[in-house]
């Protein structure tokens, strides 16, 4: 007696395998959509900015005349902003991470801090803009200067640095700490001399990613009332400033008035993406080169 009809099984199996293969190609196609969009996006902005990016575009100040406009002001503004954001996030982010990983007792407070940080990471950036506008620009009376923008951005990207630093600190193996204690070092000496140096690559990667997020953010700065036209070059953290994304924003919405502004926006996008690409490459290099595996 035959229990299995071989032909029937063969037929069924074939059709199921065909469905499997079709699904596989479909899933691959879905994955490649991202790649296709990236290529189109890069091709579009690069071709649109052709002939607009040159040394003059980088070094000129802003101008309402499209062919004389440059982004020096925005570049300087971005640099000053980073000079505020970087030390603050590094200090606050690493401090919070050390506290959570090394000192906080597992319990309510620690869980509350942790939940709070992951919630902050999900708050829309524009809400941080309103916080900055209300507290730094208006209540503290700073106005829309580099310092106010930098403080706002620092709070916005803080969760990124905290989470990255926590992971880096957690990955330092226990035997390194024990060796340090065994030699008579105190807890803080162990953290300062052993844990922090060992987790530095992870922390730096997190800080760079946080900075590149801050460089690309626009919404909070729009809310802070950061201008984009015809202000003098910022020379310190108490000056008014503008940044590359703000420049892109104004040129994009004003492209209806002056057609060339679309090219200027595209050219600024190329510069912005180039900066972000360089920063991300540095982060990847640090991660690959200096991160020891324990």
């Amino acid at each position, binding site marked *: 007696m035959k229990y299995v009809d071989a032909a029937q099984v063969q037929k069924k199996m074939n059709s199921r395998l065909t469905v499997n293969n079709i699904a*596989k190609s479909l899933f691959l196609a879905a*994955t490649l*959509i991202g790649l296709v969009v990236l290529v189109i996006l890069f091709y579009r902005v690069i071709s649109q900015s052709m002939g607009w990016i040159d040394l003059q575009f980088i070094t000129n100040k802003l101008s309402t005349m499209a062919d004389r406009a440059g982004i020096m002001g925005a570049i300087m503004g971005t640099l000053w902003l980073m000079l505020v954001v970087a030390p603050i996030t590094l200090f606050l982010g690493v401090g919070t991470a050390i506290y959570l990983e090394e000192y906080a007792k597992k319990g309510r407070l620690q869980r509350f801090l942790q939940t*709070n940080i992951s919630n902050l990471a999900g708050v*829309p950036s*524009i809400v941080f803009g309103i916080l900055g506008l209300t507290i730094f620009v208006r209540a503290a009376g700073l106005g829309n200067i580099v310092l106010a923008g930098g403080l706002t951005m620092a709070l916005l990207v803080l969760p990124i640095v905290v989470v990255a630093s926590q992971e880096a600190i957690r990955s330092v193996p226990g035997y390194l700490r024990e060796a340090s204690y065994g030699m008579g070092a105190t807890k803080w000496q162990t953290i300062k001399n052993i844990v922090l140096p060992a987790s530095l690559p992870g922390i730096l990667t997190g800080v760079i990613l946080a900075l590149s997020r801050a460089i*690309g953010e626009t919404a909070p700065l729009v809310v802070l009332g950061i201008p984009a036209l015809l202000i003098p070059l910022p020379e310190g953290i108490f000056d008014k400033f503008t940044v590359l994304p703000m420049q892109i924003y104004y040129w994009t919405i004003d492209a209806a008035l002056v057609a060339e502004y679309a090219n200027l926006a595209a050219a600024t996008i190329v510069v912005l*993406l180039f900066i972000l690409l360089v920063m991300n490459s540095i982060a990847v290099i640090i991660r690959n080169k200096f991160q020891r595996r324990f």
Partner: protein
Amino acid sequence: MAKHKDGVNVRELINEKKTTLNTNRLIEAFIPKFLMVIATISIFTTLGIILTLLFETVEFFKAVPFLDFFTGTKLKPLGENAQFGVLPLLTGTIISSVIAMAVAIPIGLMSAVYLSEYASDRVRRILKPILEVLAGIPTIVYGFFAFTFVTPILRAIIPGLEPTNILSPGIVMGIMIIPMVASLSEDAMSSVPNAMREGALALGSTKLEVAWKVVVPAAMSGIVASFVLAISRAIGETMIVTIASGSTKNFTFDITQSMQTMTAYIVEVTGGDAPAGSTLYYSLYAVAMTLFVFTLIMNLIAQYISRKYREEY
């Protein structure tokens, strides 16, 4: 007096050691307290957000009744007889998010299945960073892309599409969110143990059947959490909608029309220099509060799902 062989007084050495020990003890006591203060700054940030929004929102509801705000279909913040119904902004926000999810969920999930179940290690190592690049592009760039590229193409295909409309930013927002859905879902699927796959394969399942009937259900909590986070992200997204969907406060469900989202309204009001103390000024905070509460609930739900229903293997 006993002299050390280098001519150092032993008592001095002891005293020196004592001082360092004392300083060390002081440092050890001080550092944890200092770090705790630093750690609480994140809590003060949250408190700051809630309090600033709350105070001004209360002022707003002194001028505009609660019900008028949440059931009003007309938003006309300027001029005489100003009306402050939030429904046009809510529909704008929800419709743009729905369009974004219609793009991001299927594509993101399919990418996740491909990366976790089909792709070889080499392919995954190439494709994942590309998706990450997509996630790292500033939203302002996506806004420019939506406005200058996607909208003209859509207008050529769909007659009657307004120059600013909700469809184009919705689609581009979806593309922006794909990496988030894909990578979070892939994480959830990768953590499903191989024993379950092998069991299903041994019973004669194809890879598709393994993925669809074993891996996806097993990773469902992580996948759903990624969807919820993606929705929250879409609700809070600002620059794409501000640039590409215009500022018409339409109460409509027609996706070819220009609509304003909550975030775009905030940009418009802050950009327009609303005089402090006016109802228009306070409306900014009421809308921001609504936005904040929406995204906070979404984030809490996502955290709850992934914590509560995390499968333990």
